[in-house]
């Protein structure tokens, strides 16, 4: 009897270990297949953009404009406020840090580079992931549960062309645009603080900024925005389309989509910087 009990305990532990291995394996397979699905969606989107018209299934420009409105134009106020705040914050921190070496006057170079190369694309990316990525995931999730995606398919309307391409294109145009706006506003905000604190005139500040910034720095930031745009859209679509379990499931995939896209943005940012800067 005791021997049997021991045997059972061992079996229990072994089974739990096996279960854990199986769960890990399944999670790996799932994430790899999600990755592959995202890549396939991206490729298919380009097919519709470039070949859709020739097979009489064009991507509708009006839908792209509507998305651009929602993703970009409506987000301008909040991007402006956040960028202004971050500009001022960077100026304060920069001046404080440099004052330790008595080099406050060099603060412009730090501000100009960190805003254009890092802060603007990152902040706008995270903001748009929270605003528009979540909305897209929720919309696709709801449509999928309501069988609206099936309805599209049986009507002969390709869901990728109809539902994925418009937000993807809009995102790839508007995120760099917002990021550029954020560059301008943050640099302006920092400039105002610097001119007040260090007594540097605003024209002198902007001359300094233009002097230290290269086209390369700007493109570095805007290029990243473009990549973030693709990540946000694909993460939202993969999550939204894979919804299960009713309205509760929609909530779950929406949250997951935001978390995953922000993680993807930050990690990709680091990899990008590592590859490009070194």
């Amino acid at each position, binding site marked *: 009897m005791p021997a049997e009990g021991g045997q059972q305990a061992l079996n229990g532990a072994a089974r739990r270990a096996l279960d854990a291995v199986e769960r890990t394996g399944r999670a790996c397979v799932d994430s790899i297949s999600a990755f592959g699905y995202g890549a396939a969606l991206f490729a298919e989107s380009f097919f519709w953009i470039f070949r859709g018209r020739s*097979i009489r299934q064009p991507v509708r420009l009006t839908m792209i404009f509507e998305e651009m409105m929602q993703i970009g134009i409506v987000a301008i106020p909040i991007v402006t406020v956040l960028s202004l705040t971050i500009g001022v914050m960077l100026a304060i921190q920069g001046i404080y840090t440099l004052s330790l070496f008595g080099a406050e006057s060099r603060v412009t170079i730090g501000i100009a580079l960190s805003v254009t190369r890092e802060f603007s694309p990152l902040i706008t990316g995270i903001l748009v992931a929270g605003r528009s990525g979540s909305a897209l995931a929720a919309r696709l999730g709801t449509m999928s549960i309501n069988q609206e995606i099936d309805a599209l398919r*049986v009507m002969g309307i390709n869901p990728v062309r109809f539902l994925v391409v418009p937000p993807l294109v809009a995102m790839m145009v508007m995120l760099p645009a917002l990021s550029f706006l954020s560059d301008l506003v943050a640099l302006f905000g920092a400039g105002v603080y610097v001119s007040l604190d260090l007594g540097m005139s605003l024209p002198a500040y902007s001359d300094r900024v233009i002097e230290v910034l290269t086209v390369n720095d700007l493109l570095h930031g805007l290029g990243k925005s473009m990549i973030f745009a693709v990540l946000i859209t694909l993460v939202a679509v993969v999550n939204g389309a894979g919804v299960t379990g009713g309205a509760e499931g929609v909530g779950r995939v929406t949250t997951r989509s935001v978390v995953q896209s922000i993680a993807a943005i930050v990690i990709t940012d680091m990899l990008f910087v590592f590859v490009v800067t070194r």
Partner: protein
Amino acid sequence: MGVEAVNSDRSVLVEVEHLVTHYGARKILDDVSLKVYEGEVFVIMGGSGSGKSTLLRYMLALERPTSGSIRVLGRDVVRSRPSELYELRKKMGVSFQSGALFSSMSVGENIILPLKEHTDLDLKTMEIMARLKLEVVGMAGFENLMPSELSGGMLKRAALARAVVMDPKLLFGDEPSSGLDPIVAAAIDELILRLRDALGMTVVIVTHQLESAFKIADRMVVLDSGKLLVTGTVEEVRNSSNERVQQLLNRRVDEVELDPEAYLKRLTGA
């Protein structure tokens, strides 16, 4: 046998052969075979959860079967390329059980969408066509409402209007008249017959309602737990000697459980 002889000169629009399907590990449809002939109303009858909607999804090529073949309008939909499915789907109309109207568009926009995507008509003409179809399903004047502002029955009727807006050769309807009040339900049944007679449409209807099925069907099948019990005309189904069919027809509940041990096992989940 008799039916085959009568129909042998008409073309087969939908042909399902030995269809077996699974959701995960669960077998849902088991060796289902049927033929739908041109110009008939074909009804798929069965109790709740018997696999009717599932069968429809496979005919619409929304899922890939485990085995078996499905031909629609002469095309093997399981092995069709996307471009072939696209051409095929322009000739079919579908109304889903829940309506599946696009919630971001008004009723009118919903109905116009297939026209917008597949024709070069100008907007005015499309709007007139949409109103015409809404009129037909008894929903004139509702084109500017959003789907969230409609009742369940109105959603179904709007979905039916959207399904027929392209005047498809083949119409699929999942419970188009279930859950509606008797008058509207009867009107929908009339409409289906009119589509067949006036436009020569071939119609496949899924329903669990006996009266409706018997009223509209030219031929029908009865599905039970994923298996076909009978196929035939209304008369043939009515006179079927299959015990389970008679049970369904006469609304008798299942026989008393014969095996108390099995019953206990199920309850305790052992």
